[in-house]
C-alpha cells in the first residue's frame, strides 16, 4: 500500500521537528559556549546531561518534586560539578591542541558514566509521566514536548540575556573573541573559564531534566545528544549562540522531513549530507561568526 503524503502530514512533521529541535538547541548551546570560549571539545557533555536527568529523577523519586521545577536544582548542581572539573582537570587543556581536550573529556565521560552505573545500576529509571497532546486544527502538539520546548526557549533566552547584559556575560564573550586581549583588558580569564564550563554543564543538565520527562533515565542516555549537538553547532557556526539555536531547530525539522519523505533509516544520512554541504559552502556555519 502506498503512503500518500498530504500537506497536513508535512505540517505535523515540521511542528514536531521544531519541538524536538528546541531541545537539541538547548543542549548544543552549552557545548557551543564551552568550545567558543575555551576551544575545548567537550565529549563529556552528554554525561552532564545524564547527571542532570538523574538529579531530576532522584528529586522526583524521593521528594516528589515536579521535574520541570527540578531544573532549578539540576542546573546549579551540574554547574558546581562542571566548575570543579574545570578547576581540577579541564584547565590543563584550555587552548591546547584539540586532541588533548577530546581525550581528557572522553576520559571524564567514561569515568562518570561508569560511576553512575556502579552507584545507580544500568536500570531504566523513569520520572513522572505527562502524556497526550493539544490538537490545533489537524495538528497534534505533544504536551510534554511543548512544555520542554518552551522551557528550552526560556533558558536559551536567559543565557542570551546573561551573555549580552551582564558584566560576566560580556567578559565571557570578550574572552571568546580574543583571549589575550581580554586578559590584557583586565578580565580574569581563568575565572571566566570556570564560569563558562560550569554554565555549559548546567545547560546540559537542564536538557537532561527535560529529556527525563519524556524518556528513560540511564547512565548512557546522553550519547545520542552529544552527536546531535556536534551536528547542531557545526550547522549554526561554532561559538555562535543564536546559530546553535537556529541549527537545533533546523536539524529537528530536516530529520523529520527526511524520515517522512524517505525512510527513517535515511534521516542520519540526510543530516550528515547537510553537514558536509555546510562545511563545503559555508564553513563558518549558517549564521557564521562569533557570538
Amino acid at each position: 500500500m502506498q503512503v500518500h503524503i498530504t500537506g497536513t502530514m508535512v505540517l505535523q512533521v515540521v511542528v514536531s521537528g521544531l519541538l524536538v529541535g528546541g531541545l537539541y538547541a538547548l543542549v548544543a548551546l552549552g557545548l557551543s559556549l564551552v568550545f567558543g570560549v575555551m576551544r575545548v571539545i567537550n565529549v563529556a557533555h552528554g554525561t552532564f546531561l545524564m547527571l542532570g536527568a538523574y538529579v531530576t529523577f532522584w528529586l522526583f523519586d524521593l521528594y516528589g518534586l515536579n521535574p520541570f521545577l527540578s531544573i532549578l536544582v539540576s542546573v546549579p548542581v551540574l554547574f558546581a560539578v562542571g566548575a570543579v572539573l574545570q578547576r581540577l582537570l579541564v584547565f590543563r587543556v584550555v587552548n591546547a591542541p584539540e586532541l588533548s581536550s577530546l581525550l581528557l573529556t572522553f576520559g571524564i565521560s567514561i569515568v562518570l558514566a561508569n560511576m553512575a552505573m556502579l552507584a545507580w545500576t544500568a536500570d531504566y529509571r523513569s520520572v513522572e509521566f505527562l502524556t497526550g497532546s493539544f490538537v490545533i486544527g489537524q495538528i497534534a502538539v505533544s504536551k510534554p514536548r511543548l512544555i520542554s520546548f518552551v522551557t528550552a526557549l526560556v533558558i536559551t533566552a536567559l543565557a542570551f540575556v546573561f551573555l549580552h547584559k551582564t558584566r560576566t556575560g560580556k567578559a565571557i564573550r570578550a574572552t571568546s573573541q580574543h583571549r589575550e586581549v581580554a586578559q590584557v583588558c583586565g578580565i580574569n580569564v581563568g575565572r571566566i573559564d570556570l564560569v563558562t564550563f560550569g554554565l555549559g554543564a548546567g545547560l546540559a543538565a537542564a536538557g537532561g531534566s527535560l529529556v527525563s520527562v519524556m524518556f528513560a533515565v540511564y547512565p548512557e542516555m546522553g550519547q545520542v545528544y552529544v552527536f546531535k549537538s556536534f551536528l547542531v553547532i557545526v550547522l549554526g557556526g561554532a561559538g555562535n549562540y543564536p546559530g546553535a539555536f537556529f541549527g537545533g531547530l533546523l536539524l529537528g525539522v530536516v530529520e523529520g522531513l527526511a524520515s517522512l519523505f524517505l525512510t527513517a533509516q535515511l534521516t542520519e544520512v540526510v543530516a550528515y549530507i547537510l553537514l558536509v554541504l555546510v562545511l563545503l559552502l559555508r564553513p563558518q556555519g549558517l549564521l557564521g561568526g562569533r557570538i
Partner: protein
Amino acid sequence: MKRPTNATVQLGAALTALALLGLAAPAAAQELRIGASISLTGTYAKPGKYTQEGYLLCEKDINDKGGLLGKKVKFVVYDDKSEPPTAIKLYEKLITEDKVELVMGPYSSPVTNAASTVSEKYKKLMMASLAATTSIWERGYKYLFMTISPAEVYLEGLVELAVERGLKTIAVINEDTLFSKAAASGTIELAKKKGMQVVFHEAYPKGTTDFTPILIKIKSLNPDVIAAGSYFDDAVATTRQMKELDINPKMYGVTVGGDLPEFYQLLGKTAEFVYGSSQWESHLPYPGIKEFVESYTKMWNREPAYHAAAAYGACQVFAEAIKRANSIDSDKLREELLKLKMTTAFGDYAVDERGFQIAHKMVLHQWQNGKKVTVWPANVADGKPAFPTPPWNAR
C-alpha cells in the same frame, strides 16, 4: 632443639598443601564439572548474574537428588566481562586446561556465537541456555543446542490473536539492530503466512526519539495492527507518540521493553492495552515452576527473571540427556538431545536437526489495569485479551 625457621614452616605448609591437592585430585574424579563463562561484569552483568544463579540452583537441585551418573555436579564459572573474545579464551581454558567434563553456554547471542566456535572445535557439546539469534544455528554446527525461543517468534502471539479476530492489515516497525530486525522480519513472514496484508514496514536507527514521521505515515494507512520490534526507550516513545497523534490500531504490540515494570511506571495508563512478549513468566503452569520460583527466591532473595529460568531449564534438559545417555560423550548426548522432548520449569524443549529450538513458546501479555496479564497461548493464559483496543479519546 632449634626452632623451625620461617623457611621451613613455609616449606612444610607448601608440602601439606601439595599433599592436600593430591588428595583432592581423586575426589575431583567423583565430580562432574560443568564449565561456563558468564558475563559477571560489563554490559550484560545483570542478566549474566541471573544466568549464573539459575545454573547454581540447578547444581544444588541435582546434587540434592543424588547427583548425575553417581557423581556430584559442580559448575566451574569464569567471568567473560561481556566480551566475546574473552569467552573464547575462557572456553579454550575450560576444555583444554581444566578439562571439564561438560560445558554449558554463556549469556547472550554474541557471546554464545563466539564461545561455540571453541566447543565445536573440540567436539564438546554445548547446551546454550540464553542465545536467541537464529543465525548461530545456521552455521552447520553439530554440538550446539538451543533453549530459548528465537527472535523471529517474539510476536507470534500478536499475529495469532489478530488472525483469530479477523484482522486483516498490519504495519511493522523496528529498530535497525540485529535482534529487532529479526523480530520484525519473523513477524512479517508469519503475518503473510496467516493471510494478513503487511501494509507498512520501516526500520528506524537506534537512538531515534521523534517517531512522528513514521507514525503519521502509518496513520494514513490506518492498519488494524501495529507491531514494533523494539527495545525499551523506543517502545516507550512510540507508545507515547501514538497517543499524541491519536493513532488507533485495534491491537498494538512491542517486543522487548513492554514486559518491564518500568514500561508501566513511565507510561502509566498510556500503557494500558499494549501487548508485549516474554520468554517466561513465574505464574505459568509448567511442571516444577512453583518449586523453582520458591527455591530460587529462598536461595537468592528475589524473584527469578526469565534468564534464570532459562539457565535452570537448560541445565535440567542437559541433566536429563546425560541420564538417558548414561554417558558424557558428546555424540551420545547429541543423539539424546535431538530426540528429547520435555517440559521443565522454563517450558517446552524440543529441537530440530540443527539443535535449533522449536518447541518453546513465547507468551504474549497485555497491560490491563496496571497488571501484565498473559493472554496467549490460550493453554497458559491467565486472562482474556481486552479487545479491541479502544481509541484514545474513549479511554
